[in-house]
């Protein structure tokens, strides 16, 4: 395990060094990402400026949701990008090479490319998160800060799990399924707002099938000490981010299952 982590770290360093060869391009893309995400948040500000509040949530409270989900997604996208770009490996048969190496394929795929330009989105999410933290007037006890970090970690695991599942489907379909974008990018969009406003079937899907609400909405309620119109208990809200980790572990099992059924395209 420790050995694998060291190897992953090596992959990360090599990838970063490679991308830093194109420094100007890296800086411009990161800046563009930071700027683009900022405009998305400005759109949320426009809505709050016009309507005042959203089902009892203020802008600062909504900003906490925004920060939590965007930081988590940026971390997952940076670390598990290899899964997002997996279909060419299967189509060209390059995946066979990975199978020959004496390390787990999930580790090798994850480490193929660590996208540094995601740092633009990550920084922007952090800025919003810090702003929300100061604007909220919540007492930031060490316990609360720790819980906040755990929530982000749970969210990052969930999104990483989704990328793994998306890649796993390539073992059967060769092509990457675009429908997954609705739960990855679309999931980020969805989780930026309190889940209580969505229709029941929609909410259930994002709680029980893909536990997105459990790594954003429920822990945010606990952090903000807000009552839940859906009636969850504080204890559940505190345990909820663990489901994100569980989701990743299940996704990795599905990956192993898919890998055993992999047949090379032979090209």
């Amino acid at each position, binding site marked *: 395990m420790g050995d694998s982590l060291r190897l992953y770290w090596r992959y990360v360093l090599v990838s970063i060094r490679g991308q830093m060869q194109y420094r100007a391009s890296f800086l411009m*893309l990161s*800046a*563009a990402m930071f700027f683009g995400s900022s405009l*998305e948040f400005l759109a949320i500000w426009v809505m709050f400026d016009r309507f005042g509040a959203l089902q009892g949530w203020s802008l600062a409270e909504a900003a906490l949701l925004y920060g939590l989900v965007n930081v988590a997604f940026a971390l997952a996208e940076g670390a598990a990008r290899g899964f997002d770009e997996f279909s060419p490996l299967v189509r060209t048969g390059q995946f066979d090479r990975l199978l020959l190496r004496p390390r787990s394929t999930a580790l090798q795929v994850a480490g193929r490319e660590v996208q540094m330009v995601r740092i633009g989105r990550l920084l922007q999410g952090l800025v919003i998160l810090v702003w929300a933290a100061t604007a909220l007037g919540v007492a930031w006890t060490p316990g609360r800060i720790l819980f906040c970090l755990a929530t982000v970690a749970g969210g990052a695991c969930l999104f990483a799990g989704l990328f793994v599942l998306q890649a796993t489907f390539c073992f059967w379909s060769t092509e990457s399924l675009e429908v997954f974008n609705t739960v990855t990018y679309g999931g980020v969009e969805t989780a930026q707002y309190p889940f209580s*406003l969505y229709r029941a079937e929609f909410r259930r899907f994002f709680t029980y099938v893909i536990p997105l609400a459990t790594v954003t909405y429920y822990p945010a309620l606990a952090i903000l000490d807000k009552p839940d119109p859906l009636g969850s208990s504080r204890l559940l809200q505190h345990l909820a981010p663990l489901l994100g980790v569980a989701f990743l572990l299940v996704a990795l099992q599905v990956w192993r299952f898919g890998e055993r059924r992999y047949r090379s395209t032979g090209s």
Partner: protein
Amino acid sequence: MRPYAAILSARIRTLLQYRAAALAGLVTQLFWGAVRVMVFTAFYRSSTATPPMSLPDTISYLWLIQALLLLLPFRVDPELQAMMRDGSIAYELARPTDLYWLWYARAIAQRFAPALLRAVPLLLIAWAFLGLQLPASPGAALAFAISLGGALLLSSALSTLMVISMLWTISGDGFSRAFSIVIMFLSGSFVPLPLFPEWSQPLLQALPFRGVMDTPFRLYVGHLPPEEVLLGLAHQLLWTGLFVLVGRALLARGVTRLVVQGG
């Protein structure tokens, strides 16, 4: 005129082949639209003040955004981008046609065909099940159609400008990405422009970007009376003309300093 019309129709026919991709995109856009409709409905229900546009109108506006998102100058023509990378752009220069109008015709096709493929099924589904209203009146429908034509011309001029900018920044993905997001924001694709703060309205009205989304959509829902289409069209064409002039000037300069690598 003939060669450009031929290029336009050939490109449109090529791009209409990508039906599977359009179907996959349709599911994504429907999901996205459903989320946005729920969020906006919740915002409307949370406020006691009367917003400048009614909720049913806003819902129709949101579905029109989802349907016609591809009309935006969102990404640079990938074939032209590849040509600039590998140097086969030299062939484009050798053609006995005007390079600007050649690229402009391509840009129109690049905007029109994918938008058409997505808009028709999406609007039908949104109208049947998801709260999209019909145009406010027959006059509004006509005004909407005319205004969409203006939007297509304006959007294509903007995207041609983005293609030309690549003569300077081959790896200028960062610039064109940031520029497209600005256009999305200021055209009303994130939040309908009537909902922006009152103090920003004069600025939003003067800027060119409302012409690619907001103007036709407001005519559709009846937020603008149908006769406003003429003013809207004048605004769209004025800015289109300006972007064409700037684009041609930049292209003329870009071509003289162009160095094609390799052979």
